[in-house]
């Protein structure tokens, strides 16, 4: 029961983090459209790292 709640909290945190990454990346692309490629790659990497954390929590919590 508690592990499920913990996993839920971590997934909420991951969601907030992904939102931040996506939002900031969009902002920076809007500011510097010529750097869009680099920003996208960095965004995907950070997103993947975060996703790994959230999925890890999900698997361990289950």
């Amino acid at each position, binding site marked *: 029961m508690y592990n499920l709640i913990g996993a839920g909290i971590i997934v909420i945190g991951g969601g907030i983090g992904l939102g931040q990454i996506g939002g900031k990346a969009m902002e920076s692309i809007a500011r510097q459209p010529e750097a869009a490629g680099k920003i996208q790659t960095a965004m*995907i990497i950070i997103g*993947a790292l975060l996703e*790994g954390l959230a999925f*890890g929590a999900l*698997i361990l919590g289950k």
Partner: protein
Amino acid sequence: MVATKSIKFLVVFVLALTSFTAFAQEEVVENNLVDSPDEIREFIAHHLKDSHDFHLYTDNASGKHYGFPLPVIVWTSNGLKTFMSSEFHHDDNGEVVVDKDGTKIVKYHTKIYELDEGAAALSFDEAHHPTNASKVIDFSITKSVFGMILTGLLMLIGFSSLARGYKKGNTVPKGFSRVLEPLVIYVRDEIAKPNIGDKKYRKFMGFLLTVFFFIFILNILGLTPLGFNVTGQIAVTACLAIFTMVIYLFSGTKDFWAHTLWMPGVPIILRPILAVIELLGFVVIKPFSLLVRLFANITAGHFVVMSLMALMVSLKADFGPVASTGMSLILSLFIMFIELLVAFLQAFIFTMLSSLFIGMAVEEHDEHH
């Protein structure tokens, strides 16, 4: 001209893929094979697991299964036993006992057991674990293994034809190699070079390209109606992650180990603590996140697609067969397109992070603290 033709082909191919999967699903529904939420859950769980035979569909009217058997190769207490999985007659509840020279072999929930001496049938305890049978070492060519061999063959054919083209001196590849060349160059220029460095990337290109195309083709294969779920098997992704780990640990430079085990520029007291954290990060956490990411993404993708297809069963009572089927067809088509993106993205991410970790390990530090 050629470009529009190939795009047309791609669109038709994708549509054919999605509609066929849905069609196969529908057939099961019409025959009332899967009807209740429990049965849907069981059906999805069965799809996500590996299996010992290649099952395409079941004709419920005649009760016939269509598909083909795969070889079962097990190491029992009496040595190696091999037979085709058709001898189990599609039984997965441990009811059919295969007798091989006195060794009684049963299959229960996709695991193969060897019955103990004197036992005639499998018996279970309260938690549904077999009590009178022992596990065997299973080397069978299961569906996943079959998928991996198929992918290996596809890669061998595709890339050897690409290599032959270059050997002949073609500067522009022909046929299917035209699809492969940009992907190879993409992996080289966008993944390997920026992360590992211009000097050292060549040594790791073999691994990175193999891993990229292996995951990519298997992910795409998982979206076809053949029902593969290879990259959704935790053993497969774990193995890939261990390969990456071994490669970056063994290609680590002196600088890498110095920075990992005895970090310069921090107080002496903190250095052992940092060493433990860094070692744990490189040996446990990084491979674990690699393997879990791929496994969970693909499993979740398959789960969502299957659940949306199951809508046509669970909503049939409320909305009628036509509306529920249309709804689930549109939704699963939409998710299928996203899954195509995910199939590429996960292959990209795995290769990207592998090269990032390798890059960390082979980096030369010029500045001294």
